[in-house]
């Protein structure tokens, strides 16, 4: 089975792109399943079900969804293998712009949209910078100039990625993406022992442990203070 990890900011079009890509894969008789990771709520699973795609969802609740991903991915892979899928796609929540749940050796796709503003590529960390393929969406509603500027910003933070423009509404470009996801040589039986491409943030402070009170006395562990300058002195 091939595994591909999709990630990207909320509302960038991940689900639409995945659905259009699956349509193209189905025409080639490739069986695909999806596991959607999110935090509190998602109804994307309904969309996949409607499209006849085997789907599971994982809600991380009080945990960081990407940490949750890392702790569950092996079980998810085994689910896909049990269903005898050719391709398993995981879709991340894409919340804080820093993390990326990409795994070395496993294809990572970042979906990002033209409407998010030209400085967005600069703001997104490893989620964009360490992706193998960057899919840029919503190109049909911005000018050609903005599309070109946006793509050049993406390529300066991740010059090695392949950048593709895909229209999530018409599916233009989705067939092309689908041809890049199946790789006979990258078939896996397990992700046991594989490594994340980038360490997730090591935040363990009193608030991680359920503290709700505000004030110096309640702050313990990995706490960092903003530098607000000395203006008030």
């Amino acid at each position, binding site marked *: 089975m091939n595994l591909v990890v999709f990630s990207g900011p909320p509302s960038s079009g991940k689900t639409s792109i995945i659905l259009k890509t699956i349509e193209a894969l189905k025409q080639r008789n490739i069986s695909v399943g999806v596991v959607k990771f999110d935090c509190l709520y998602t109804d994307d699973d309904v969309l996949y079900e409607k499209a006849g795609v085997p789907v599971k969802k994982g809600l991380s609740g009080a945990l960081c969804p990407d940490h949750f991903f890392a702790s569950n991915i092996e079980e998810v892979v085994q689910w896909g293998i049990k269903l005898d899928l050719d391709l398993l796609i995981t879709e991340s929540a894409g919340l804080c712009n820093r993390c990326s749940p990409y795994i070395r050796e496993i294809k990572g796709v970042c979906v990002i949209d033209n409407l998010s503003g030209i400085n967005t590529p600069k703001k997104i960390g490893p989620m964009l910078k360490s992706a193998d393929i960057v899919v840029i969406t919503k190109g049909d509603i911005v000018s050609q100039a903005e599309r070109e500027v946006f793509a050049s910003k993406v390529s300066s933070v991740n010059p090695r990625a392949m950048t593709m423009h895909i229209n999530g509404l018409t599916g233009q470009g989705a067939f*092309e993406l689908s041809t890049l996801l199946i790789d006979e040589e990258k078939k896996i039986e397990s992700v046991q022992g594989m490594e994340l491409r980038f360490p997730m943030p090591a935040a363990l402070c009193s608030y991680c442990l359920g503290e709700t009170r505000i004030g110096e006395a309640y702050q313990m562990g990995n706490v960092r203070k903003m530098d607000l300058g000395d203006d008030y002195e």
Partner: protein
Amino acid sequence: MTMSKLTIRELIDKYPFIVSYLEDNKLDITGFEDKTFDDYLNHFSGEEIENWAIDKERLKEDLLAYIRQMKEFLGIKDDTSISSLTIIAGHDKSKNPEGFEEFTINKSEIVSIVGPTGSGKSRLLADIEWTAQKDTPTGRAILINGEKPDMKWRFSSNNKLVAQLSQNMNFVMDLTVKEFIELHAQSRLVEDVEETSQRIIDAANNLAGEKFDLETPVTALSGGQSRALMIADTAILSSSPIVLIDEIENAGIDRKKALKLLVSKDKIVLMATHDPTLALIADKRIVIKNGGISKIIETSQEEKEILVELERMDSIIQGMRSELRAGKQLQVRGKK
């Protein structure tokens, strides 16, 4: 590579474009100009590396990749000569062969595309953009300059084969026209930004019904002005040799001039339209049906005569539009 021995100052002298790589990756090299890039990366503390999600190895490899890519891009700039695009027939959704065998469009030619929504226009465009090699659902093949195209058109992010202009495009950036053009020019590594900006605004004003200047915010432009700016910018600054136009609304812009401008910049123009004035300006039109090209029609002499009549009517309407805008009352023609 010897690059690891160069100081950052030497690197910038040799490859001035890496300044935007450093900027976009938030690498402030102030004070490290005389050190190597490796030395610079090694100065980050463990805490900084964790806090700012810095990946030293990736940054080093990416810088090399970036330089390679930009060098290639600069090379391509000198050699953007695409003189023709050839479509070799595949089949429609029902696997029937398409109604032509081979169709070549030369630069500075305009071809219109007609057919109902959902008939396969997007697929045709995607085939061109992906330079299909019988490996897409239509089984079509695309040739550039009569040859099997270089795979760079598929995989490079800065050199896309097709630029698109569509009806629902908007400017989303909050910039003035000047800042907007400059930003685009910088991303294309244009040397004379000021002169290029002036050329674009002059061209845009030549197309727009109402003039605007470099200090106007792009979000304050009217529909016609926006389209004029987008077309002028695409004609002059876009690196893509093929332009696809998805209808140009007939308001506030001289469409014939717009097409002339694109064609004068050696672009290959494909235009999806059901507006008779536009469709007939093209010398040929592609008819799409059931996912395939059912036929290619050459604009007949009779149609060209119809076009003259259409253009006459068009100019009457445009004239009336200007008069209304100027606050005049309309009069029956010929009456004083």
